[in-house]
């Protein structure tokens, strides 16, 4: 860990100004950044502490029937908020599927969006990594890639985004509110995170000096038909090998609006509009779900250790769609998969 200076921002404008400096980094819950600093992966010259910023700690009802979650609201607060539990149980479920109570108590909503990949090489400064040091290469492609991407990867990077919460946010079509040098703007969730392409060092489309201030959930929350199915190498406290968040509306046996997003398989939560469109207006059936899964994974590519994820994702999509359609969401307490 390098030596750094520290400033506590008192308003969003100051935070944005401070964060705009080249070596500055914003810190909130610190559950990821501090680790990365200990590993010398992140070496900020200045930390801008936003934890005392006013107005970012509330969960508020929005005029359109949605919910506005301030960037500093902790993961625990979101997961156990009565409105979230009632109207967006998918979001609650994904948060409780991740990390540990201790981490969720500290981690913030904005920070969760900005957490970085768990790629072994990214974390180990003794190895090359295009995401950490552009141009040095990607040893994960010919190397150890059990937890790596099978969708949307590039020859430069096959890292995945590790968040559970973001997978639900993607399915819920949340909107990220940011404030920066150019004023305020709203970024649709699908456009917030990036695919690696030839610039894997950039995880998101957040501009320099931009601060996440809130995440807005639209009114549609899929409280009756949803699930978060997370498959991992142990039954708790492990990142997803493959996860599926589903939000669905059912009209009798027929599917209305349907969305599903995958975690653990790509550089961002993965949605496939064509696959979702296949479901709408159709009767729920295993055959339909299998076809939608097939469609989602049509461009999937494995790199050796992670090749099993393609088949695993296919099956997980089918199971998750079944759970959601049946209104029997996956419990995050009982580890038996429904």
């Amino acid at each position: 860990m390098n030596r750094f200076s520290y400033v506590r921002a008192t308003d969003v404008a100051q935070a944005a100004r401070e964060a705009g400096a080249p070596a500055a980094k914003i810190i909130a819950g610190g559950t990821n950044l501090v680790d990365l600093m200990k590993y010398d992966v992140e070496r900020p010259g200045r930390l801008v502490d936003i934890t005392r910023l006013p107005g970012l700690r509330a969960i508020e009802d929005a005029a359109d029937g949605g919910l506005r979650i301030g960037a500093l609201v902790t993961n625990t607060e979101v997961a156990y908020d009565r409105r979230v539990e009632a109207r967006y149980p998918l979001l609650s479920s994904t948060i409780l599927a991740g990390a540990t109570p201790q981490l969720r108590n500290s981690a913030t909503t904005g920070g969760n969006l900005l957490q970085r990949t768990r790629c072994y090489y990214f974390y180990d400064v003794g190895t090359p990594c295009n995401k950490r040091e552009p141009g040095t290469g990607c040893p994960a492609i010919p190397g150890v890639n059990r937890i790596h991407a099978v969708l949307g990867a590039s020859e430069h990077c096959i890292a995945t985004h590790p968040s559970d919460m973001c997978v639900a946010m993607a399915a819920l079509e949340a909107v990220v509110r940011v404030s920066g040098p150019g004023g305020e703007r709203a970024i649709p969730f699908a456009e917030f995170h990036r695919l690696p392409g030839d610039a894997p060092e950039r995880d998101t489309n957040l501009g320099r000096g931009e601060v996440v201030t809130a995440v807005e959930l639209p009114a549609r929350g899929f409280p009756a038909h949803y699930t978060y199915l997370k498959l991992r190498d142990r039954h708790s406290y492990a990142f997803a090998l493959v996860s599926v968040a589903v939000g669905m509306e059912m009209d009798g046996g027929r599917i209305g609006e349907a969305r599903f997003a995958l975690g653990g398989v790509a550089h961002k939560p993965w949605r496939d509009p064509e696959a979702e469109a296949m479901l709408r207006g159709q009767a729920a059936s295993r055959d339909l779900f299998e076809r939608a899964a097939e469609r989602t994974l049509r461009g999937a590519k494995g790199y050796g250790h992670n090749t099993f994820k393609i088949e695993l994702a296919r099956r997980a999509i089918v199971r998750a769609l079944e759970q959601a359609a049946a209104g029997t969401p996956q419990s995050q307490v009982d580890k038996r998969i429904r």
Partner: protein
Amino acid sequence: MSPIPNAETHVGSPRSRVDGRAKVTGAARYSGEFTAPDLAHGYVVNSTVAKGRITRLDTAAALAAPGVLEVFTHENRPRTAWFSYNYQDEVGPPGSPFRPLYDDKVVYSGQPIALVVAETFEAARGAASLVRVSYEAEAHETDLKNRMDEAYEPPKKRTGISPPPKPRGDARGAYADAPVKVSGDYWAAYEHHNPMEPHATTVVWEGGGKLLVHDKNQGVLNAQSYIASVFGLGKGDVRVVTPFVGGGFGSGLRPQYQLFLAVMAALELRRSVRVVLTRDQMFTHVYRPNTFQTVRLGANPDGALRSIQQHAIAGTSQFEDHQEVVVNWAGTLYHCDNVELTYKLAKLDTYTPGDMRAPGAPLGLFATESAMDELACATGVDPVEIRLRNYTEKDENENKNFTSKELRACYQVGAERFGWSKRNPEPRSMREGRELIGWGMASGAWEAQMMKTSARATLTADGKLEVACATADIGTGTYTILTQIGADAFGLRMEDVTTKLGDTTLPYSPVQGGSWTAASAGTAVQLACEAVREKLFKHARKASGSPLADVKLDAVSFADGRIEVTADPSRFVRIADAMRAGGVDRLEAEETAKPSMIDQLRYTGYTHSAIFVEVRVDEELGAVRVTRVVDAVAAGKILNPKTARSQVVGGIVWGIGMALEEETMPDHNLGRFMNHNYAEYHVPVNADVQGIEVVFVDEHDTKVSPIGVKGLGEIGIVGTAAAIANAIHHATGKRVRDMPITIDKVLG
């Protein structure tokens, strides 16, 4: 002959850990927590290549950083012992031990190549990131698969490790002729120990050339002699004190590199130095070796074994031949006339592997007991029944009788408690909802042995007892059981007994390992207490008007601070009065326990277990849950059922990890382990562990140790992985021979 033991009030009864409160309140001091005025902090820099030469080591920026005192490298390290034999330790294998900062050669990825010492930990850590290193890398090999053709039988055997027995009969011929055959190749991944407490050393510079060393290890005397030998110091100048160890599991048997580095820096800087390894650095030394095995069993249609062949190849470093007992277990557990067991090593560009909980046994038994399960399926004989049909009352490897063997009772009791009789033998026959249910079992065995160990007992006139021994308590409960033994010897309360451990000034003990401590240190404490009792009794008889004057030692009891006639407790002498009569205020004795040479020649000693497991498998998604475990254990006398159960449960939990989760993943292109932290190296968490029942089967055995103890440290893990693999086969019909059995291997 030793006198009749006192009545057992504490021994054999569940007692909470005497050190439990200190541990949960933080009062127990661990090696990285001791401090000293003027303490400096060291941070290790590790190599990033697996093999080659350091061509340039630029420490200028690090040295210029605020608070930095020195950066030690191979270029400026102080003079240490020249010869590699000076680096040998009590349990090291044949070869030339790793010498930190010795020269410019890199022999494994993660090798310590510099130590930055600064006024604070943060300053040292920050400066460590400024050290610039250039290498001339050479081609390396870390993939066991690529070196198996060059595998060799280790020419020099490791002390204390039985090599495979000579072949008996004609295993290959008998296999060829056998009506039923099973064969398979088995893989076990690299595992790292991952004790909660990282390796750490605090060296307190006491002046006058004296060092007080707090080092995370499993044997203070081993650490002391290593330091003395490497740095040319007198043992009198090096005291090692390690009262508490936060888990060892074998990782603290041999001195690890932070000990060398901390002592080197303290000697050179002439001040106190602490070096604590990070979690990631815990993956830069000892580990359980990657091991490949082939098993072939030939049998009659009734399941009687006609041939056993088991061959293992394990990785080791380029510089030492680490050896463990992998293949011998089949030949010990079962009767068979035609047996061929071999164990070979293959050299890799890695650090030397080392002992990890029950070294060798869970690897060997994973293969043996999976193959036995396969044989049960092939013959249609129940898995318990087939083991009974091949039961042996003699260790055929050694052609000796067992000191005791209640494995038959383990099978019976374990099966009963588990409800094994309700098992449908057909794979895939049990299902609930989406989950397939599988029931599997396996046998377990581990050596029961006693090592030469000394202990001291000191009784004072106020009726307080202190027992002392240099052995470690790595979390096993040694403090507690020695306190129980001491308390019972004099009829005291546990609170009246103080146990001192982990200090080189205390009586001799080998490292704590191999499940031998309870038998060895326990016997030594018992002997020392008996010697004190004799002295005390002599004084008691001399007291004026003593009611014990005409009584023999075997007719008295020690209770409530008194020596009383067992048949008539109204006749007694108080401890204080006895001491007064002898003109002393304390009585002390040091005794040494040694294994019986005659019994060692005549018998072999093992603990045994039969473990039964239920798994539930969501086959479509590859998810496995271990929902129930029953482990029946025969381990001689159980001194403390509470701490004993903890030992076995801990082993079982590790077995779950071994079977399903634990794997250090090497990148063979880089020659480097990649998942070096707790997030990506998976050990079981609460959600992975459900009901575990441990049953201790009665077993009487005074041949392993006079106090009847066989030891419990390893027996919990040995059969667990095999039982889980067998349960997964029963659930799914799929035989996975490659540990850990992760989702991808189960996906139907």
